[in-house]
């Protein structure tokens, strides 16, 4: 590249090169006296580079790239497994919920039916009881009324006999009083 002594000092530099390199001022790439040195060192350094590259550099860098690739793939696979697991858990939860709901409905229906049946039975028993009590009460009322009616007849007959006695002074015959009372009661 642009070397400092490329200008004014170049004849001196050329002479210097000639003195040291032993080649005569021609075109450097075609100076055959330098070929052996270049080839020897190229062979040494290129073989050294090849050994370093093939034994150390490429396995190391390739290993790092592969390790990263594996890590990424492993992480993705793990994420997929976890997602599958959570999906499965969600599905299980939903089916559990659905079955619980059905079960709850069944239990609700059953207990409602049972309660209805029990209530029906109780109501029926109560109604029978009440009907029996009602019938008894009606019977009592009827007998009481009959008794009262017969008492009314006796009292009326007695009162009629005493009225007749007070008015006429004659004690009327019980049979005719009773007949007269009966006739007026039938009225």
């Amino acid at each position, binding site marked *: *590249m*642009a*070397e*400092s*002594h*490329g*200008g*004014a000092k*170049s*004849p001196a*530099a*050329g002479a210097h*090169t000639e003195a*040291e*390199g*032993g*080649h005569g001022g021609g*075109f*450097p*790439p*075609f*100076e055959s*006296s*330098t*070929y*052996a*040195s*270049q*080839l*020897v*060192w*190229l*062979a040494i*350094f*290129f073989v*050294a*580079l*090849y050994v*370093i*590259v*093939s034994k*150390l*550099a*490429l396995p*190391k*860098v*390739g*290993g*790092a*790239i592969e*390790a*990263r690739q594996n*890590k990424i793939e492993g992480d993705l696979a793990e994420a997929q497994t976890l997602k599958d697991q959570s999906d499965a858990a969600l599905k299980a939860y939903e089916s559990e919920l659905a079955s619980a709901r059905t079960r709850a409905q069944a239990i609700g229906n059953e207990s409602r039916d049972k309660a209805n049946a029990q209530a029906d039975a109780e109501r029926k028993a109560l109604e029978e009881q009440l009907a029996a009590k009602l019938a008894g009460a009606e019977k009592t009322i009827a007998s009481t009324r009959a008794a009262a009616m017969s008492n009314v007849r006796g009292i009326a007959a007695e009162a009629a006999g005493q009225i007749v006695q007070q008015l006429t002074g004659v004690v009327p015959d019980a049979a005719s009083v009773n007949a007269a009372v009966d006739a007026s009661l039938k009225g």
Partner: protein
Amino acid sequence: MKIDPIHQFNIEPLFTLGHIGNQTIAFTNSSLYMLVAVAIISLLMLASGTQLVPGRLQSVAEISYEFVASTIRSTAGAEGMKFFPLIFSLFMFICVSNLVGIIPYTFTISSHLIVTAALALLVFFTVLIYGVAKNGLKFFSIFVPHGVPGYILPLVMFIEILSFFLRPVSHSVRLFANMLAGHIALKVFAGFVAMLGFSLGALGWVGGVLPLALTVALYALEILVAFLQAYVFAILTCIYLNDAIHPGH
């Protein structure tokens, strides 16, 4: 003022190690920048941590990894991942050394044809040896395209074979020439600024704004080219390797 756009490509020995035949083996500025590239890549890839949520440095390391891996998968298929370390090393080595080389006063390794040719030949022979070892003689069926009429088949085969053997040439020259030309162009335009200023005084410094703006624009382009040429080198490697892995296609 004199512009010397070639000087930046000089190979300067830092110390000499020894000789093979009549060739001197020295640790040069080129070797130093190879070491720098290897060190930067190692640091980036190894010191960047392995956290689950990456930091900046780790992100850069992982983006490089994924970028090269997806390039291989899309051009050579899953079987191409066998060559992941090779293609990753090539791409990172070229990309980092190009980007380092674009910093002023540094040296660009891939501006030398010998280096890019060595890398291209490495790919060429990898393809050839792996292709033959895996597919046997069937590998050479890449020279015989399907559905070509018999009378022009020899010509097509000749072109296919020629283009196969010219692959390392185009593969290496493309990278080398791009880096070389880019750096020369930058050097020339940057040199104009100084040259105008020193030769014309105040007027020259004002006039230097234009080449300076051009240098900035070229610099941005060169950053793109530095990355793009590394990518092109890597993707061509994948395409050539695809021939070795699937010769029937």
